[in-house]
């Protein structure tokens, strides 16, 4: 019986209003490569943050390397030998590889008097070749490295302290195929050298390739620990989703008209490749996919906030010049950003100021604001969208997430809105507000506005969309009609190998 390096028993973590981790038992054996999967909100990142010391568990036991741990902090966990590699850029751009790897572990000579540059390069190169089996010119600057190479440097930096447990959080997102292979070779070598790996990812085929076992979380609970050799993709998906869903009857909303509203063709950005789709008047089009598959880029490129190297956009038959948000708005395209705080709203403006901001020309005569009109419009919208506030003078920052989102959406009600693009519109919103937002969107589409709805939640797509695209790695990989919606199907296009699974 192999020794357990990490043992967590009945761990609970509760945030205000959310029981994020419920009685979870999570144990990993020494030398294992354990994958951790689950939908957004399943609790994986909360759980991992307990392991890395960022979250303090509310109850439960935590044992690492046979010692019980009662104090949780990132630096403590580092000392015990737990390291994590995130996607953030944790490097200093103008440092060279050696400096980065050996940051805070620099090598000196002459009894500590000066830095021994030569030895640093030597040791850095050694770590790279021995543990990562690659050779990089250690004199190269971090900012000249590719994303994949930077990740290697981060891993190497991690290894300097000889950690016992290494957590990889979505490491392959920015990598290309050969870099992924290289990463896997590194993980295998680390495993051989005795490290234990926890690998968080949403890419199922990778998990089958690299991990030994998988833990699946759902709704804050651990639902299964499986051996990957004895399992398959469908079983994993089933555990993740809790079984198949009944198709909800789509009588909730009308059929879209036959008229074409929007057509996008040949759109390329740094990440997007040859994106093309069309949208009918009054249609609600979902865009499904894993995080970072390109949905955000698509939205921003259409609206003009992201530079498109090529692409054609036609709205009701007329060509729209890309790259200018004010143009897009004038033509009736609205964009509700994923980043509600920094981009969707001006947090320190009040409701009225936010509502009229995008179309302020309408509320000004000779430049002067028509205050009465602003106020009456805002009041109407507050009522229409049931925005909970004392009055329109409330600063948006102090509203709840759901109400903030309603304000962000409502600003486009001041236009003749033709297309509304929403990116993760209900993230972080309570249930009540969510259903209110759904009603608003249904209303809109009934009135003839087309909607592009980017969301990671299958339930939303099912409830609202006539049709859905699925994106992966910057491309549209599927265009699925509402009648064929099923969570397994969409998921398999998004993260699996694309084997369609109809219905249940």
């Amino acid at each position, binding site marked *: 019986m192999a020794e357990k390096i990490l043992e967590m028993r009945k761990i609970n973590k509760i945030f205000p209003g959310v029981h994020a981790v419920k009685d979870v038992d999570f144990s990993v054996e020494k030398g294992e490569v354990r994958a951790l999967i689950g939908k957004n909100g399943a609790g994986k990142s909360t759980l991992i943050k307990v392991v890395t010391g960022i979250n303090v568990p509310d109850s439960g036991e935590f044992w690492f390397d046979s010692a019980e741990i009662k104090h949780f902090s*990132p*630096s403590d966990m*580092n000392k015990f030998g737990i390291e994590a590699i995130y996607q*953030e*850029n*944790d*490097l*200093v*751009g*103008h*440092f060279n590889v050696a*400096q980065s790897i050996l*940051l*805070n572990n*620099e090598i*000196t000579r002459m009894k500590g008097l*000066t*830095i021994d540059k030569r030895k640093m390069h030597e040791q850095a190169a050694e770590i790279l070749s021995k543990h990562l089996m690659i050779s990089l010119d250690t004199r190269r*600057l971090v900012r*000249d490295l590719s994303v994949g190479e930077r990740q290697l440097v981060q891993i190497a*930096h991690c290894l300097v302290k000889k950690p016992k447990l290494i957590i990889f959080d979505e490491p392959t997102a920015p990598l290309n195929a050969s870099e992924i292979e290289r990463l896997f070779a590194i993980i295998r070598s680390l495993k051989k050298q005795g490290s234990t790996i926890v690998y968080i990812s949403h890419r199922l085929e990778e998990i089958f390739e690299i991990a030994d076992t998988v833990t699946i979380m759902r709704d804050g609970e651990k639902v299964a620990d499986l051996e990957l050799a004895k399992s398959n993709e469908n079983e994993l998906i089933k555990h993740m989703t809790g079984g198949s869903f009944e198709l909800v009857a789509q009588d909730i909303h009308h059929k879209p008209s036959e008229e074409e509203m929007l057509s996008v063709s040949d759109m390329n950005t740094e990440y997007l490749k040859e994106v093309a789709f069309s949208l009918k008047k009054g249609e609600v089009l979902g865009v499904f996919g894993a995080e970072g598959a390109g949905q955000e880029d698509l939205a921003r490129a259409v609206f003009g906030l992201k530079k498109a190297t090529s692409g054609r956009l036609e709205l009701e038959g007329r060509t729209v010049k890309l790259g200018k948000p004010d143009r897009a708005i004038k033509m009736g395209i609205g964009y509700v950003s994923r980043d509600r705080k920094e981009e969707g709203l001006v947090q320190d403006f009040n409701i009225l100021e936010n509502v009229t901001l995008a179309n302020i020309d309408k509320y000004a005569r000779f430049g002067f604001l028509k205050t009465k009109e602003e106020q009456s419009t805002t009041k109407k919208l507050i009522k229409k969208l049931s925005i909970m506030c004392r009055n329109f003078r409330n600063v948006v920052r102090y509203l709840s997430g759901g109400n903030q989102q309603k304000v962000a959406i409502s600003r486009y009600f001041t236009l003749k809105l033709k297309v509304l693009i929403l990116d993760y519109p209900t993230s972080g919103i309570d249930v009540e507000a969510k259903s209110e937002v759904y009603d608003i969107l249904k209303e809109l589409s009934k009135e003839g506005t087309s909607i592009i709805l980017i969301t990671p939640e299958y339930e939303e797509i099912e409830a609202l969309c006539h049709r859905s695209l699925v994106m992966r790695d910057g491309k549209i990989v599927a265009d699925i009609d509402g009648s064929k919606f099923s969570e397994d199907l969409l998921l398999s296009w998004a993260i699996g190998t694309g084997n369609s699974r109809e219905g249940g």
Partner: protein
Amino acid sequence: MLNIIKRNFSTSFTIFIFAGVIITLAFISPSFFDFYNILSVLGQATFVAIPAVGLSMIMISGNFNLSFVGVIGVSAVTVGVLMSRGVPLFIALLVGLAICLAVDLSNAFLIIKMKIHPWLCTLATMLAMLGLETAISGGYFISARSSLFMDLRFGSFLGFPFAVWILALVFLVFYYVMHKRPLGFHIYAVGTNPEAARKAGIKVDLVKFIPWIFMAILSWVTSFMYLIQLSGYPPEAANISLLTVILAVFFGMAISTKNVINVPGTVLGAVFVALMGNGLSLAGVSSYWIKLVEGVILIAVIMSNSLGSDELVQL
């Protein structure tokens, strides 16, 4: 790719200006390259180079400091006034050092702990210090007579004047600290990516404090240099050098291949500006024009640096 061009553009642009100016000046005034002239230029350069090294380290750590011109002034006039009252030199100097430390540590506290904006905070401190300086000096030239000063000013050791030795010493010491010791790397890390530094286990706030201590010491040394070289301190003497010091730091950044602020580049920048000023004045250009040219070059150098960035700067 474009970034590499933009980066090298600023390096080559700056070197081009540097070389061009020097060569032009050498042609205009034959006495430019006279050994003693160069030595005197180096001596001049210390007034700029020493505070610039301090400012470099503060900027490397992610902050800024405008107040040094006032700190130098207050320290210089205090020492001068104490000396004229008969206080032993070494005590007067200690008081000067204490003043520099008090002000810069207060700056550091306000900026690091209270999170006041570094530009604004040190602007206000500079104003206060300049006022204080004039309060102490009454607006007069404070003379500092001492035979020791005379020796230091006119004498030389191994053929080089004291000022040049100080310049060399400051350069060597802080080059060593910033580029040959882990602390230097940590200061760079903290200034560029504090989160990364924190995750690597570096104590960010502590590391941010240290350059201010250096700054205090260097300001004090500069005030000492003024007293020696000018046998006293003219009112607000250090003021004129404010922009020159900033220019030296950015010059250093511009010629660095990594495009980072660095000690050797800063010193070189100070020397360059001193050479340019000297050459121009040998050629008969009035000092006000010289200052004007410095200002324009500073703007050009910084623009060549920031033309690479795509976003507006919010303080």
